[in-house]
Each structure stands twice: as structure tokens, then as C-alpha cells.
């Protein structure tokens, strides 16, 4: 069943308008300070329950974009609007703090994304605890609910991350991201470090969660196959610019931009 959001046109959950990012070079003794441009004029929209794929090779700016959206880095230009809330407006000097944006992230490395010294229960409940929740019963209930949602047993809460496999750890990371009820989930190369058999489990979990919670997902990947499987829409980034965007089917089966073509041709796919 397709996600209902795909058919009903509605206001975007997230709208990015001409996002730009320039890194200020450090001025050195014998050299002029030079800026490095990581992103230029990146604009896109994500509707409710939509999965937007962001594709590109390393250094194309896709991770910078993710960090700007969640608030780990500041954009140097542009606006970011979620529903009726302005998250970022560089011109007006608005930079909403990360927690207020209600955007959460799932990371690439299943090992460094979980604090090895924290029990899984504490990992998953961290967002609520940061927000000031101290009621242990309530926290335990919420954690159990989240673990169930991502397909882990409730007992997992009392164990440590190292007792889980890579795929299970990604599930824990997803539970942690979802416990604060974000409106958008960003997955930054979230399945790249996993074996293929596990990768499919996590992709399907993301689809399930989207269907169940109606949450919008930004899925960042270098893997065209994964994007093709998971995403409704896709944008292709090269050197900080969007070179192509559209529905995933259209972009991947009939790429119009040279770079996209080259990228897609380079990726061997099983069906061709």
C-alpha cells in the first residue's frame, strides 16, 4: 500500500530554500583566508510520509546538508521551514536550537553511534531525559514501546550495545531517534555499513515506520539501488549543488543530467 501522503497533496513537512554553506578558511601567516563552498542554493520539499533520497559521491555535501537540517551546523544562506515553523532563516538571523526542530537522525556507523558505556534503555530514553523527564516508570514504558516498534525485545533495555549485532544496533539508533516523536527522520548512510541481508531488514523497518507513523524521511546514500528501493523522490548532489531532482523512478531510469547518468552507470545493478 502506498503511503497516503503520496496521493494527497499537502503542505510540505520540510521546505529548504536556497540553502548555502561556506566554510571560512582559517587565515594563515603566509596565506590569504579562502572560503570553501560546501553547498549552493539547495532547495527541496518533503511532504508528510514522504521519503526523499539524497544521492551523491563523497564530498558532494550531502552530509553537510543533513547536519545543517538537524542544527549541528549553521547554514550560511537560505531558509528552512517545517510546517508553519521557521527553523532557519539566515537573513533574519533565526537558528532554532536542534531540540526545538523536532528532527532526529540515524547515523552510519552502528558502532560509534551508541555510547558503549550506556545501557540500551538509557540510550533510547536519552532524548526524553534531556528534555527533563525523570519518571522512571514512564521512561521504561516508553523505551519498551520504542523497542517493540523497531522489532527488539523489551529485555534489550537492560543490556549494553556491544551485546548486539550491527543491524540490531541500527534498530536501537532508530528507537532513540523516534522516542522524541520527531516530524522528520534523517538517515545518513544508515545502511551502508551493514551486510546486504541485514540491510534489507533495516530498509523494510524504515518503510514500516513511515507507514505506521506517517513520518517524513530524508535518506542520504551513495547507493543507487538502496535509493531506488526506498525513496519516493530523489535529489542528486554534485559539488554542493542539486544537479537533478524528481521522482526516484524517473531520475534513476531516465537520468537527464550527465553527472547523474555517469553515477548511475557506474553503479552495477543486478537487473541490468
Amino acid at each position, binding site marked *: 500500500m502506498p503511503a497516503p501522503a503520496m496521493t494527497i497533496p499537502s503542505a510540505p513537512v520540510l521546505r529548504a530554500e536556497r540553502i548555502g554553506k561556506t566554510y571560512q578558511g582559517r587565515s594563515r601567516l603566509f596565506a590569504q583566508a579562502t572560503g570553501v563552498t560546501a553547498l549552493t542554493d539547495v532547495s527541496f520539499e518533503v511532504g508528510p510520509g514522504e521519503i526523499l533520497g539524497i544521492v551523491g559521491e563523497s564530498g558532494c555535501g550531502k552530509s553537510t546538508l543533513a547536519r545543517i537540517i538537524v542544527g549541528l551546523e549553521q547554514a550560511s544562506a537560505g531558509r528552512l521551514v517545517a510546517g508553519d515553523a521557521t527553523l532557519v532563516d539566515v537573513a533574519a538571523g533565526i537558528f532554532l536550537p536542534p531540540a526545538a526542530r523536532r528532527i532526529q537522525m540515524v547515523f552510519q556507523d552502528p558502532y560509534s553511534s551508541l555510547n558503549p558505556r550506556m545501557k540500551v534503555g538509557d540510550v533510547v530514553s536519552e532524548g526524553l531525559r534531556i528534555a527533563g523527564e525523570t519518571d522512571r516508570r514512564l521512561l521504561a514504558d516508553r523505551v519498551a514501546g520504542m523497542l517493540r516498534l523497531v522489532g527488539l525485545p523489551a529485555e534489550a533495555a537492560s543490556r549494553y550495545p556491544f551485546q548486539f549485532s550491527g543491524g540490531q544496533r541500527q534498530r536501537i539508533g532508530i528507537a532513540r531517534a523516534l522516542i522524541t516523536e520527531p516530524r522528520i527522520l534523517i538517515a545518513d548512510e544508515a545502511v551502508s555499513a551493514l551486510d*546486504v*541481508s541485514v540491510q*534489507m531488514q533495516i530498509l523494510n523497518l524504515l518503510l514500516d515506520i513511515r507507514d505506521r507513523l506517517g513520518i517524513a524521511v530524508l535518506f542520504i546514500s551513495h*547507493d543507487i539501488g538502496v535509493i531506488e*528501493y526506498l525513496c519516493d523522490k530523489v535529489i542528486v548532489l554534485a559539488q554542493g549543488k542539486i544537479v537533478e531532482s524528481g521522482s526516484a523512478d524517473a531520475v534513476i*531510469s531516465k537520468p537527464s543530467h550527465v553527472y547523474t547518468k*555517469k553515477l548511475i552507470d557506474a553503479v552495477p545493478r*543486478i537487473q541490468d
Partner: protein
Amino acid sequence: MHDTSRIDDAVLEADQLSLFLRAGRGTELKIVDSVSFSIARGEFYALVGESGSGKTVIARSLMRLFPPNTLRMEGRLVVDGVDLTTAPASRVQRMRGRSISMIFQEPMTSLNPLMTVERQIDEAIAVVGGMGRRERRERVVELLADVQFANPGSVRSMYPHELSGGMRQRAMIAMALANNPSLLIADEPTTALDVTIQEEILQLLLRLRDQHGLSILFISHDLSLVRRFADRIGVLYGGVLMETGPAHELIDHPTHPYSRALIDCIPRRREAGKRQAGIDGLVPGVADWFDGCRFAPRCPRMAEDCRHGRIEMTPTQPAQVARCLHPL
């Protein structure tokens, strides 16, 4: 044994090869269990598997790249007529860089940061000896040109940190080819690289294979990649070779349920509302091997007899063999 894909003109032949790693305190772990395959001259053979399948251990055992007394080999592993399971250390030493050479996953860390590209390649050439300084210098340039450096003269004097990832890997390949080896082992050589560079490196390997009659043992986790470039494929799971055969046949018509499931896991275009099935469960750990088929607990075709005893390789297609009692 019953390997129908066995070739007379084999550069490498593994026959019932088992590998054990000593884990200290007198215990050893069986990492690889009775694997048989062979590689013909000029053939591009890919060993594919998920993490923990034993593919890297097989690659490294070919050169005995393990600390002394940590690896034990059983069965036969013949390269260029020398059985590596019984050959003395000095014999293996003499094969490195001459009969067999190797490139690795991380081209950055695989090159010595303090030496120029030329010195590192020169060192590899000098292993054989018999060439003067001038000759070796010319050979370095020739090798660099061979791996498609547009300007070998200037690359020569560069240090690894001045090269990009793809260039480093090409320098590694140049070094590996220094003494015209018969077998090149490539251990996930493109995993750390961008897809467009990956394409470039693989095209280069194919060209070198054709030019020099080089045999390539390519280790990978990426089935779609090897289908495009390899001649034949071996699918490893839990230290066991599950199936081997010509690349296209094996991937388009796998006969082992594991190969089938693995291929079905590769994400592709999805009809709205449909899902591809993953493989449930986990890869078994090296420390807790069990009897019967390693894949049985996760296998949709599992029957009672899959749980016991040894399962031998049997031909399932004219050119395919699989270790399965109930092949597709």
C-alpha cells in the same frame, strides 16, 4: 572433489581447504571449512560473502600474511604448482610478489607514507633482482603508465599523501604487477572508493587481465559488482563455500537457497506497497559452528536432513556446484 568447474590450466587450486586460527591457550578456531575452487589462467574469480564469511582469511592465507604460528592449513592450496599448505616458509616468501601479489581495501594505509611512489615500486622490482638501477627506473615508469597514469614521470616522485584514493590504488596495482605475477589477489580494493572511481579501477583490472593473462582473485561483498566484472563467482557463508559457478549463471539462476536469498536482498526498484524479503536471523559466529548446513537455521527450504553430517559439493547445473541437499 566433485568440482565440475575444475580446470586443467589452473593457476590456483584449493581442494578441501580448511583454515584454523590459533586463539591462544591451545585452542583454535576453524575459520574456513573444506573450501574447494580453482582459478584458470587469465580468469577473474570473485569470492563473495558477508562479514564473517572467511573471504579475507582465504585471501590472506594465500600469502600466509599472518603472524607466525597463528594459521594452520588443512587440505590443498596449490598456486603455480606449489602446495601452500605444506610449503616451507622460505618457499612462500619467494612466491610473494613474484607468483602472487596483492592489493588491499585501504589504499591510504597500504602505502608507506614516508616513501615516494617510485621507491615503493622499485623495492618490489628489486625483490627479483638482476636489474640495474637505470633499468628499474624505466620499469617503474612503464608500470605507472601501464596503470594509466597520464604523467608517470611526475607521479613517480610523489608521496602517497599527494595522491587521491583512486591514484593510490593504481599505484598499489603498479607495485603488485612489478614482477608479472600469475595471480593477483584483490581484497575489496574498491570498497573505500567512490563508485565512479570503482568503475575505473575495475576496468583497469580487466584490461591488465587481458593484456598479461593475469588471474585475479577478487574478494567482495557486492554481488551486483562481481556479476558485472567477474568470470566466475564463489559464494561463501560462515566459512563454507556454498556455491560456485559462472558469474551470470550463478546470479541469474542460483541453485543454493543462500545464494538465492542473498541475491533477493539486493535492493532494486520496488512496486508500490511491495517488499523484498531480507534474510531473517543472524550470521552464525565463528566460535559456535554447528553440524550440517550452516545456513539451515535461516533457510526457507530447510529439511530434517540439513541439520546433520557433512554436506558435499554436488553439481547442480552444467557449470555450477552447490553444497546443498535440496537445491533449487
